[in-house]
């Protein structure tokens, strides 16, 4: 039973040519599909999606596909380190250089199907350094979160739920001024500029009022 691979590229002619060539070389079931089919692909029994990074909203599509349990390999031209990092964080299993030729693409597709990470050697250093840097940034945020008092953490959770200071005051049975003070203190401790940034941070770190409110 051959593995099913779907190629999604902006240029359908390129996609069809690549699919035909790959199918011929590796004995896989390879088809080409337009980006408009990505939603349907997520619910199909495809083993690997080779997705052109240039496809609009390709990172969001990658995340949806990865969440659906599909492996996604990005076809890249000359991506910067930020794009690579975002792709990995979106769940991509690797990258194939569009300039690498058919043989390299064939090897990368096979490696991805075997469950191996596929990062072209020339992209490896930048991606790894980006991952280290991102981890350091997260560590800093986590350290700042640990400095919050229980009440400030509670207020942060409510900000994350979209409440303003008056609603927070009502919810916690405190005065609006006290709620405002808690907000100002937590903004300072988290080194964020405003409530929106704090709310985004709360959402990102899964801080909710659930379980915090007595």
């Amino acid at each position, binding site marked *: 039973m051959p593995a099913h691979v779907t190629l999604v590229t902006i240029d359908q002619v390129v996609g069809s040519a690549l699919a035909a060539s790959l199918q011929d070389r590796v004995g896989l079931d390879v088809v080409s599909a337009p980006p408009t089919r990505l939603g349907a692909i997520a619910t199909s029994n495809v083993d690997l999606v080779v997705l052109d990074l240039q496809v609009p909203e390709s990172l969001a599509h990658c995340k949806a596909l990865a969440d659906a349990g599909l492996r996604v390999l990005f076809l890249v031209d000359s991506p910067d380190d930020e794009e690579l990092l975002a792709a*990995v964080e979106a769940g991509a299993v690797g990258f194939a250089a569009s300039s690498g030729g058919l043989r390299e693409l064939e090897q990368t597709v096979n490696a991805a199907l075997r*469950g191996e990470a596929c990062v072209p050697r020339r992209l*490896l250093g930048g*991606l*790894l*350094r980006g991952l*280290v840097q991102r981890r*350091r940034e997260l560590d800093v945020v986590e350290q700042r979160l640990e400095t919050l008092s229980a009440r400030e953490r509670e207020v942060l959770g409510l900000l994350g739920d979209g409440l303003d200071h008056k609603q927070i005051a009502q919810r916690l049975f405190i005065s609006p001024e006290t709620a405002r003070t808690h907000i100002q203190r937590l903004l300072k401790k988290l080194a964020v500029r405003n409530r929106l940034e704090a709310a985004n941070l709360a959402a990102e770190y899964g801080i909710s009022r659930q379980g915090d409110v007595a």
Partner: protein
Amino acid sequence: MSGGSARADSSWTPVRRGALSDDGESVRDPQGSVIVLNTTAQAVWELCDGSTTMPEMVHALLTLFDAPEATIRHDVSEALIELSRHGLLSQPQEEPA
């Protein structure tokens, strides 16, 4: 061992030294021998920049490779030991001024 030992402490931030081949898959040690790097060693080599610790290396590789943490930690440790054994790593302060 030459060129610094592969210390196990989490604050060690090794620096790579040696000439990487054009394809990035091998490196020439101080004695002129060519050392072929496996996938993990290639990644570790890239991260031996004098500021990245071993736990940070493990975490970065964990994000990239679909393997258990214990396996990644073991492979990173092995790579550091091998690179050290060939004199390809040094401490940041051991770098010539």
